[in-house]
């Protein structure tokens, strides 16, 4: 089962920031593949959601970028900035608390 884009939308920034924290520098396609692999293909980040989010994170100063030429094309790598590193923990904690609240709210019993 692939999760709906509505569910993923609110957590995308957190997912991207966490991936950058774990893997150092990453490029767009690499992020989508890594998330796909870790989520056992249940989370598919679309290009239409990923790139606007990466640009917004860059504008917020949470990530730094560096470019690398792969033949004729340019590859843009993203890496967490200092403020981005601080933000990851905050975002992950916020999401964890949200998940707990949802569990309680929706009366979800975990095994």
């Amino acid at each position, binding site marked *: 089962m692939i999760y709906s884009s509505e569910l993923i939308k609110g957590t995308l920034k957190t997912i991207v920031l966490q991936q950058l924290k774990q893997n150092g520098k990453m*490029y*767009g*396609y690499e992020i989508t593949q890594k998330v796909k692999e870790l989520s056992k293909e249940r989370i598919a980040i*679309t*290009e*239409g*959601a990923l*790139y*606007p*989010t*990466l*640009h*917004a994170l860059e*504008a*917020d100063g949470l990530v730094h970028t560096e470019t690398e030429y*792969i*033949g*004729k*094309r*340019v*590859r*843009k790598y993203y890496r967490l900035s200092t403020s981005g590193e601080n933000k990851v923990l905050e975002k992950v904690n916020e999401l964890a608390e949200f998940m707990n609240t949802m569990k309680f709210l929706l009366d979800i019993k975990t095994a």
Partner: protein
Amino acid sequence: MYSLSDKQIDFILNDIGARGVKMEDLQLNLLDHVCCIIEQNLETDGDFEKFYHTTIKTFYKDALWEIEEETINLLIFKNYYVMKKIMILSGTVSAILMSTGIFFKFLHWPGASMFLVLGIVISSLIFLPLLFTLKAKEKQSVKDKAIVGIATFSGILISLAVLFRIMHWPGANMMGLLFVVIMVAVYIPLYFFSGIKNPDSKVNTIVTSILMVMGCGLFLTLVNSRPYIQEYSALVSNSYLQNSYESFSDENEQLFASLTNDSAANVKSIKVLHSKSDSLCNSIEKLKLDLLNATEGDNAQKVNYDHYGRLENYDVPTFSLFSEDLSPKADLMQLKQNLVALNDYCKEVLNFNSSKIIDVTDGSNKRPDGNATWEVRYFYKTPLNNVLRNLTQLQINIRYVETACLK
């Protein structure tokens, strides 16, 4: 694994541009992304063009430029909530400032203009533009965005028209008329025909449109009302008297200079008279300036009516010149004493009866709201406009007496 040629990379980049993605950064990101997918998934001898077109279609719902639009939206509206908070705060502040300003204006208290100006400036330059930005984002169609844009522009126009009117700056009426034209010719028809099609909003649209037409009609009447004419008539007569007084003073100065060189003239008494007249006229001029500055919250150094409006304020002259028990304050008392002293000097030394011209006696022209002293008759609960006119008339009378004595 498929290997892309430079030509194919150029083809993809050009196609991304042709599909409406103009941000170079985003173009390069998408190019690399597509290239990665092709390299990973296309067989070595696969059909590049067919695979590319199938792949790029998975990037969007309707068009590729949606990604750029979403990127721009995220960049611009990353502060959406901050903008919303500022909008609500600025709207509240401007509403409070405007209400306070109107309240002060009704009571003729100083500072009214400052509150109104601040309120209108905050509303026109912060609140309305933010409202437009946020509302336009909520609307989907270009037509709806245009309606919001026209409404915002009209709102800014009417606010500025009121501001210019209050501050007596030129162009207020032009802006007011432009507002009415935009509302009647553009906004109301657009609003009416777009709202009436929807059965849910039909009645609401008709009622709101009627109210807006009525509002425009009332505003138009206000723009052309009589107070507007009175504003200028008061201004003209005050300026006219002020000019007469100043010319009179200049002429007397020349006359005085010629007489002091004349050996036959009584130079000593002429000098005393001139000094008394000058001192009286200057103290009256200062009184006028103080009254104007107190009312307008101004710091003018010279009486100049050109940048004032109706000056219909009743309370500032009364508060400035009288105590609560109707007795005149020190400035007015001193003025009356000096006027009496001038009359006495003219009569005793120069043998000229000036008390008919500078009449400071009590008794005649009884007012319904107070005893008929000279001070009450001319200055108590009298519009600032008339107080200033009476004071200038007094200065002219002093100069007239001076001329009569010098001759």
